[in-house]
């Protein structure tokens, strides 16, 4: 394994509204390529906040964030958008599919934005991703015609379209029943092991976390199981 997919150094974050509260305290860790990590902790411990910082959507923090060995702090908004587009796939608790487009088009959208492949190539890649997730039959439906589990799988396919370095999830199974959760978990595992993509999943589901390669526990804005986190920076 060469450089880590993602590396956080001493990330600290405050919320200033209504009073200044420190939500993250000097968080340092790194995520290797192909590593499937879960972040667990009580509500309000800062895990989602950390995830949004790591995904480059939240830029008001102290510390250093490196994605694919490139420092993110100095980048402009448009450059960060490009990084999100190219290197990060995001799956949210809520599916956030665009009802105006077909399932296929939803999956294609980030690919079209990246513009690396032609339209036809993106379409065939999108079909491929939908096939991995077992929902290629729904490609031409609109998202509101699908079940919750199917929608979440479409959202995962969308996160995969650009073959991102890291896939991040904010409770991606939070709204799913057990059966669908298991399907999603199996897909994630396959992505890490077969396609060698790094996964960082925030979850409440202890059962889900237990099956991942690595569990990062958080409490009060700190990582508490530092000893078990293999890649921590000294």
């Amino acid at each position: 394994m060469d450089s880590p997919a993602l590396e956080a150094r001493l990330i600290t974050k405050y919320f200033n509204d209504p009073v200044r509260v420190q939500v993250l305290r000097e968080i340092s860790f790194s995520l290797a390529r192909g590593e499937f990590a879960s972040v667990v902790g009580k509500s309000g411990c800062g895990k989602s906040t950390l995830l949004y910082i790591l995904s480059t959507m939240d830029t008001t923090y102290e510390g250093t964030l490196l994605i694919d060995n490139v420092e993110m702090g100095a980048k402009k908004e448009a450059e960060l958008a490009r990084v999100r587009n190219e290197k990060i796939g995001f799956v949210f608790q809520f599916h956030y599919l665009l009802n105006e487009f077909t399932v296929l088009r939803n999956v294609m959208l980030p690919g079209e934005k990246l513009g690396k492949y032609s339209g036809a190539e993106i379409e065939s890649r999108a079909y491929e991703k939908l096939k991995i997730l077992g929902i290629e039959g729904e490609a031409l439906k609109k998202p509101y015609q699908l079940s919750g589990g199917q929608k979440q799988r479409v959202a995962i396919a969308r996160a995969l379209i650009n073959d991102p370095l890291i896939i991040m999830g904010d409770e991606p199974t939070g709204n799913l029943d057990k059966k669908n959760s298991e399907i999603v978990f199996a897909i994630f595992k396959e992505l890490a092991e077969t396609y060698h993509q790094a996964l960082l999943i925030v979850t409440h589901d202890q059962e889900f976390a237990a099956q991942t390669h690595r569990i990062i526990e958080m409490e009060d804005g700190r990582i508490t199981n530092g000893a078990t986190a293999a890649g921590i920076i000294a």
Partner: protein
Amino acid sequence: MKMPLLYSVAAALLQARGKQTLVAAIGVTFSITMFITLLSFMSGLNQLLDGLVLNRTPHVRLYNELQPAAEQPVDRYTRGQRQHNFIRSIKPRNELPRIHNSSAILAALRRDPRVRGVAPKTQAQVFYNVGTVTLNGTISGIEAEQENALFAFSDYVVGGNYRSLNTVTNSIILGKGAADLMLVTLGDVIQITTPKGDHVPLKVVGLFQSGLLEIDKVQSYTSLATAQKLLGESNNYVTDLQVKLHDMTLAPRLAKEYAALYEVQALDIQTANSDFETGTFIRTLISYAVGITLLTVAGFGIYNILNMMIYEKMDTIAILKAVGFSGRDVRRLFVMVALSIGLFGGALGLVCGLGLSALISQLPFTPPSLPTVKTYPVVFNPVFYGIAAAFSLITTYLAGFFPARKASQIDPVVIIRGK
């Protein structure tokens, strides 16, 4: 870059809010339609009213007004001596208001490349005799062909043919008002009294109606030769030279030039009709102001609808940003939405404006004072369409810009966490 992608996303957003989009577009269409119709109609009316004056007014009128001589004999006699003469009650010399050397001036003017045409005129004060009653009258001796070419004379001849002035000797085109008073019609012979007291019979070959009753009661036309005969003057007696120019704006300058060159009085159209230009300007200003107000109101409609769309589509904006669309992309997206409303509504508005103007131009409109006008006057000027198109795009761009900027500043984290 990625413009086609943004287009298709914009199109999807528009489709999702189809009805509102349509309402916004109809707003633009309506305002553009009204803008074009209003301007076309107002310009038509302006041209009609301008025509009333401009068609009949020479750009430069050369004449010789009877004035006391600027230099009195006593001044000439005492020149060089240190004295100042006070003379009271100076009277003009007893002479007729003719232009001296008129035929030479006429020839020179006709060679001037800036001049479109010159029509000579001889004015005579006469009395129309109706039994024992006499009516005041003015007879203008004209060259009928020239007068028609330069001043659309035939438009105002409501009975008979203006060319008869040349073919029938001792003929007159009588003012309609005067003819009504005298109970005469085409073919009748009237008696007039010349300034010298002679009685002359003239045959009525036409009736003239300017639309201004006071003029129609007094003014009549005859041929230049007949007028000279009435006055008992030679065939080079001309009181007015009416000059039409290719470029009307040169009139004040040329008036000065001719006055100095030919030693006559020269009056340009701008000086003679200064109040009337003000009227035209104000009317144009009002129609533009109303048109632009309509467009601005339509702009606010678009602004509202886009603002609403942005609130409704917060999730969409957030996810677009999360998957890698930058703030700039989002801003462009909404500006595009606004511009497509403007483009579609505006294009339809141009067509509807043309249609409505065409419809109005077919409506019958027969003012009694304007015998040549049969329908409402409408001007089809491409400039109006250009202004309307440009303005619809500018308004919709501005209406879209601010909501779009707001959309581009939406923080995806806030929205995604809010769920």
